[in-house]
């Protein structure tokens, strides 16, 4: 199957190709169009140069760098504790996960032991933030497809999560909560009840949204079979997270290379399934936009499962280890990846015994995921570009760093 893929449009999609004849008919001359950096469906300041032929996109080249803030360089000039807030601004939709990765990497380098309660709180926060991030993705994807209403629903649920975050750390977007050695403060009173309440409320909503959007005929028609990424391509382009799993690769760091305490929880890894299976429309191809979108919807359910278990097991105790006031980054090198909301978020930290690390390098999943865009956006319609980009779900803060 791999060798059949020629230009990102596998041959097996013959009847979709047949439908595209209409698009081919409008072929006239090549047009260079600037999609972004202020385009509504590029999710931030991504700029795509589209070489189109009428409505048919021949090539889409991403131009990045509009949100570059020298995050890595800053990381080399501030102490690890000071750098944690900067990580919030990488993937600003899932700040907790960013904090988490960096903290884990520093802790590993410095050999710090994190208290048990803090570990659970970290998992709670990461999974909640994953849900929040996927909700944004879900809502915006609907918006990209021209369905406005799901966006508002998604944001309504996200509000509740942000309320929880606000109660926990006082912030709604950039938390600086998961810090080196644990979390900055303990959970507020009554948090467990609120969270349990929220989970009970939220879980059935996922099915509702599936019925509302995922199985909508038009939505399926728009997304299924569009932007198919084969497993081989996904691996070759270094795709991670939902984008990789949608291509049928069962790879999730939380399960495959367990970090923190993820090995203590039961959860499944949702992957892309070919059309015809239960709950999957017939038109769906493994690795298409619908699969990427739907993997996120299923991941929210899994996160709810993890949250429930973590809440049950949540121990009492310290929320933070004793961290020396003047933490020195020991000489050495550590590279650590966590499963962020968008994929594998990696931190490479090289220390040389000073207060500041000598080198900080961040592997942003969005950056790698975006690299597939050119490959996939060949001979698709302009509307499909929005569908593909939305399903890749990039956050420009992380791409540009």
């Amino acid at each position, binding site marked *: 199957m791999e060798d059949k893929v020629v230009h990102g449009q596998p041959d097996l999609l013959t009847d979709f190709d047949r439908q595209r004849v209409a698009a081919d008919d409008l072929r006239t001359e090549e047009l260079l169009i600037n999609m972004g950096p202020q*385009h509504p469906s590029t999710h931030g300041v991504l700029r795509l140069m589209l070489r189109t032929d009428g409505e048919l996109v021949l090539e889409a080249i991403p131009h990045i760098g509009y949100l570059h803030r020298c995050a890595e360089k800053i990381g080399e000039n501030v102490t690890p504790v000071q750098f944690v807030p900067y990580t919030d601004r990488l993937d600003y939709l899932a700040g907790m996960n960013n904090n988490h990765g960096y903290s884990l990497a520093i802790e590993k380098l410095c050999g710090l032991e994190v208290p048990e309660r803090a570990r659970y709180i970290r998992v709670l926060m990461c999974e909640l933030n994953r849900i929040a991030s996927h909700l944004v993705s879900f809502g915006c994807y609907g918006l990209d497809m021209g369905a406005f*209403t799901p966006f*508002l*629903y998604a944001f309504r649920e996200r509000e509740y999560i942000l*309320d929880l975050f606000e109660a926990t750390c006082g912030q709604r977007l950039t938390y600086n909560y998961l810090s080196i050695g644990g979390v900055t403060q303990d959970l507020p009173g009554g948090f467990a009840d609120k969270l349990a309440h929220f989970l009970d409320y939220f879980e059935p909503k996922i099915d509702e949204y599936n019925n509302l959007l995922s199985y*909508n005929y*038009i*939505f399926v028609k728009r997304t299924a079979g569009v932007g198919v990424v084969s497993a081989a391509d996904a691996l070759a382009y270094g795709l991670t997270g939902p984008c990789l799993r949608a291509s049928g690769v069962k790879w999730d760091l939380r399960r495959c290379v367990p970090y923190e305490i993820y090995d203590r929880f039961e959860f499944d890894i949702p992957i892309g399934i070919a059309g015809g299976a239960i709950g999957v429309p017939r038109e769906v191809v493994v690795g298409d936009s619908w699969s990427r979108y739907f993997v996120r919807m299923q991941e929210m359910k899994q996160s709810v499962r993890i949250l429930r278990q973590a809440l049950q097991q949540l121990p009492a105790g310290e929320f933070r280890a004793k961290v020396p006031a003047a933490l020195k980054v020991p000489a050495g090198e550590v590279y650590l990846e966590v499963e962020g909301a968008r994929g594998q978020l990696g931190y490479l930290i090289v220390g040389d015994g000073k207060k500041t690390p000598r080198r900080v390098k961040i592997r942003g999943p969005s950056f790698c995921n975006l690299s597939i865009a050119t490959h996939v956006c060949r001979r698709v319609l302009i509307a499909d570009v929005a569908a593909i980009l939305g399903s890749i779900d990039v956050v420009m803060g992380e791409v540009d760093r």
Partner: protein
Amino acid sequence: MANFTVEDALRSRWSASAKPRAVRTFAVLGIVLAVAALGLGYLASSAPGAGYWLAVLGTALAGVAAMTCLGAAFVIQFSRLVGTWLFRLAFLIFVGGLVGIALLAWVPALLYEQVDAAVADHYGAGATGVLTVADLEAVGWALPTDSIEVRRQGAVGWAPPTDSIDGRGKAVVGSAHPTASFLAYALWPLQFRLTRDILALVGVVGFVSLLAMFTIWWERKVAGRMQSRLGPMRVGGWHGWAQSMADGIKLLQKEDIYLEGADRPLFKLAPYIAFMPALALFLALPFSAAWICRDLDIGLLFILALAGIGVLGVIVAGWASNNKWSLLGAMREACQMISYEIPLGFALLVPVMTTGTLRLTAIGELQAGGFHTWLAFQSPFTLAAAVLFFTATLAACKRAPFDLPEAESELVAGVYTEYSGFRWSLFFFAEYAEMFAVGALAAILFFGAWYSPLPANWGAAWLHGPLWQRALYGILFNGPLWLIFKGFFFLFVQIWLRWTLPRIRLDQVMYACVQVMLPLSMLVLLGATFWALLVPHGSMLAVVANLACTALGVGAVLAIIGIVFYGYSNRRQLVGTLAIEHWPGS
């Protein structure tokens, strides 16, 4: 400005010193004018001949001016009080205006009836001629009803008390009374076509502007409710009713931006090309059998033609913007439009074929016999044609899920990308006017036009009764209110779809048209033809089909009502069961 209200506007306009001065000026002026009016009135009572009329006119003018000035003084003096009351009643006034405009439908009809009857009375039935004021004066209000009935069968209007008719059915001509003279002067211009046309034009323009403003606000409210939010709430007080007006004012003040390299004249012209046909098609759109600006024998074609021309404005806008997104939008519009006009036309042919006329009033009149006589329920094919028509009009009006020309998530804002301010709003006026027009067209062609679901002949007795009976008849059985209601219903369905469905891709739009709707509409047309040929009216099959389709229609209506009631009674539950009270201090 978040809390800007009408009250604020009223309050901020007047500085401390200006207010008493204005009040004083207006009060004095008012009193002077009132005295003048009284004097002229005195003169009028004694002056002979032409002087009498001059004095009467003067009295009237001076009286009106005096009332205006005194009123102004009062309003300014008690501006806070008035503002508050206005503020409270504002929405009522707004909605009342809307309804009033619709009700005004009757007023011209009423007056025209009087004048036509007078002409008929004077020159004989069916003849034409020009009446002088004196003729009208002599006729007065006592007009025979039978001539009215002959000329305006089924029209809603006012009829004089029947006791003023003598045994021969002729009016008893009373002596000229001063009120009769006023009326005669007022009615005299109405016998000319030009006057009526100008009045109708004014009505149409007023209706379209009000309609667009109301619909934009309504759409935002509906969208809000669908998305578990409130929609506009601030401007105007009650549920932000003045939002569209505020937006309009804002848009008027905005800078009119042109792009460097845009084709300026075309760029400026395009919104008008889009707007004018949308406005003009109301000229041939009957609001009821009596209230129509021009009852064309090809009314349907006329409306179709104008709807087709309006598209050109959008296309030209896209082209003239010198923006590739706009260009793409324009191309989408062009190919979508050309494709969907064909199934639209086919679907339209079905009622035309069934009724055998292109005159919209004639098509409407055929559906007077109640719910089951509505054209959509005549056969399975007319029902299918109604559905096809509605779908095609969605595409024709660029409404979701066919809103590709402006597809904001794909083409930024499509053809409207480079437009701002008033020109931008003109496109939206056109769009909403057209939406209402196709909804009304659907009602006229398929869903009983201006008739209520009740058979009109149930109220036939009221048609000749006193004014209140005739008004009741107009509300219950037959009248522009029903058409407006139906038009708004279809408009609501369009809004409903927009906030529910994702957008279709271009190739799917074309596929849906060429491969699905086109053959389907051809089949429906063919089926309707054979139905008309082979199933005689009143045969068993026809009756069964009619009843089945009617049952379907009734079911749909009941389902919608049921859903509405369910939604309304469960409105608290639907929003969400979670209420996280905020932590203290957060």
